[in-house]
């Protein structure tokens, strides 16, 4: 199966969505997705990520003034069936009245491809996904993981310009999810196809995305690489959503961040109120005199290879860090905190 890199670059400008009942699902937004990129739309339910995906697909049209272009050509008024996209639905939307092979060949059938040829192509896609043995099965005879693969094969069989995945793994159990995530990741990279992937699971987003769009209440909260989003969230919402646990309140003055626990160098304009965000793994413990930040050890939880240390600052602020198991940490002792400057974020 040769699926050449036919990915389209996608540009959205001023795309908002207000539903008939007046609910604002999406604030007007701009977004551009280069050809071949895997973009993840991440956010809690109701944040507008699925609406955004459906606008790109052509299942919803944006409010007046919004425009979508594939490779520079405006497709705003084109219905989904004319956009040549591949879509994997959360419920898979496999046709129960057709066998696996007929499902996969369906897109070619409505394109008028002759029967022998479309079956050949469909088998080739199934082979690529290593599920050719399922070809004659009914949809009801498939397991969840098999359905997921068939749905993906069906979307790819039409050689789409962009593949859209709407929470494709949500219906599966955790172990299978992990496995299929890796499979989808390597497939998308191999095909170099433009992909837009909607999920509410940050682990999935971090593993799959070239870039992540974090969304909140119909608007974009942050766009960035997985590393940027993970270590340098631009606001409190993103920080909370990607699971940052530690917050230090203080101020920024003359290139130093100062808090009740001490201070450390930090580049940036002066700010009277600032919060330093960091993850447990961005910090390490050291002797108090080696750093400007000093805490008292409140609790130590041994976890095998590592230990989890809860620290309290002078004003009672708690932070959680991880330390190697062999490091000696005693409750009640004073400890210094060293932070990796590349994995800090100030909001």
């Amino acid at each position, binding site marked *: 199966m040769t699926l050449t890199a036919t990915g389209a670059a996608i540009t959205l400008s001023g795309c908002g969505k207000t539903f008939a009942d007046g609910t604002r699902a999406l604030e007007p937004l701009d977004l551009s997705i280069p050809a071949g990129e895997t973009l993840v739309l991440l956010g809690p339910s109701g944040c507008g990520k699925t609406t955004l995906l459906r606008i790109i697909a052509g299942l919803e049209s944006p409010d007046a003034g919004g425009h979508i272009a594939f490779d520079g050509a405006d497709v705003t008024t084109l219905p989904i069936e004319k956009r040549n996209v591949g879509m994997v639905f959360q419920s898979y939307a496999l046709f*129960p009245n057709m066998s696996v092979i007929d499902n996969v060949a369906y897109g070619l059938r409505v394109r008028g491809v002759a029967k022998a040829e479309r079956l050949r192509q469909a088998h080739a896609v199934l082979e690529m996904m290593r599920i050719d043995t399922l070809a004659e099965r009914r949809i009801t005879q498939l397991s969840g993981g098999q359905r997921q693969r068939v749905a993906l094969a069906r979307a790819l069989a039409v050689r789409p310009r962009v593949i859209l995945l709407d929470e494709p793994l949500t219906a599966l159990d955790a172990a299978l999810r992990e496995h299929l995530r890796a499979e989808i990741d390597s497939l998308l990279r191999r095909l170099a196809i433009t992909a837009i992937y909607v999920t509410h699971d940050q682990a999935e987003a971090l593993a799959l995305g070239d870039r992540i769009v974090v969304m909140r209440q119909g608007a974009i909260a942050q766009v960035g690489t997985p590393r940027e989003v993970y270590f340098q969230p631009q606001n409190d919402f993103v920080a909370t959503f990607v699971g940052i646990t530690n917050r230090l309140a203080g101020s920024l003055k003359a290139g130093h961040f100062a808090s009740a626990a001490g201070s450390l160098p930090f580049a940036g304009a002066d700010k009277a109120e600032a919060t330093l965000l960091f993850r447990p793994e961005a910090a390490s413990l050291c002797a108090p005199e080696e750093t400007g930040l000093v805490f008292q050890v409140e609790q130590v939880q041994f976890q095998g290879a590592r230990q989890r240390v809860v620290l309290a600052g002078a004003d009672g602020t708690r932070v959680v860090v991880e330390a190697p198991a062999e490091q000696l940490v005693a409750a009640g002792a004073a400890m210094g905190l060293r932070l990796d400057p590349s994995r800090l974020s100030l909001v």
Partner: protein
Amino acid sequence: MSPRSMSPHRLTFALQLLVTLVVAAFLLVPAGASILAGFTANYFRGLSSGLTLDWVKEVLKLYSDTIGFSIALALGTLAVTLVLGVPAAWALVRRPGRMARLVEEVVTLPVAIPGLALALALIIAYGGFREFRMSPLFILVGHVLYTLPFMLRSVMAVLAAVDVRTLEEGAASLGASPLQRFFHVVVPNAKGGILAGALMVVTLSIGEFNLTWMLHTPLTKTLPVGLADSYASMRLEIASAYTLVFFVMIVPLLVAIQMFGLERPLKTRAQTPTKANRGPPLIAGEQP
């Protein structure tokens, strides 16, 4: 619940059993008697007069035209309800809103209004068009009016239960046009509802009397119209044999509907509790 636990309970059990047996007798004995009478040489003298097929033969000779007409009418009604109903059911399910509710309400209204009133309205509006009034089409219109809601509801219930919208979106994402989606995805997945609706339509059309009695002409007599004739003017054995013929036609349909009825509510209820409970059960609504 063991019926033997205590004596007041045993009394309740016995009373319930008695009522059930009386009800069974009330419903089944006359039907049995009618079947027997159709085969008995002389019903007033009883079985001792001997069994015969003469009455059935007589009925087939006298009334075969009504039997044929009823079957043709039922099939014609089915064809029209399929063409009118299945596409419309899809259109109504697509956009559940106040408009769809209103349309559904108006379209299902004929079920709630006695056939006699409907027939009267049709005659007053169209009785003047002689050719139409005299043709089988006139009865066909009445039967379609009356059975269409059953087809609509049956198909709509299934479409709502299988979440046909997502399937359609799936087909659209693969490039299928709206018409292709309707024939490739909607119709095949509504098959259960279409079949159940078709059984209802045929059963109701074959048994319909209220409308048909008012709408029929001497040349467009249906089986129930013939039955009413025979009840009024023929000897009991012929009326019974005629009823027997009717049973032979209708009972297989009823059994088929029962088999559907036992299966379907389970499925639809499990998936969409609100939609499945909408309105009275499918078969409710026809009038004696």
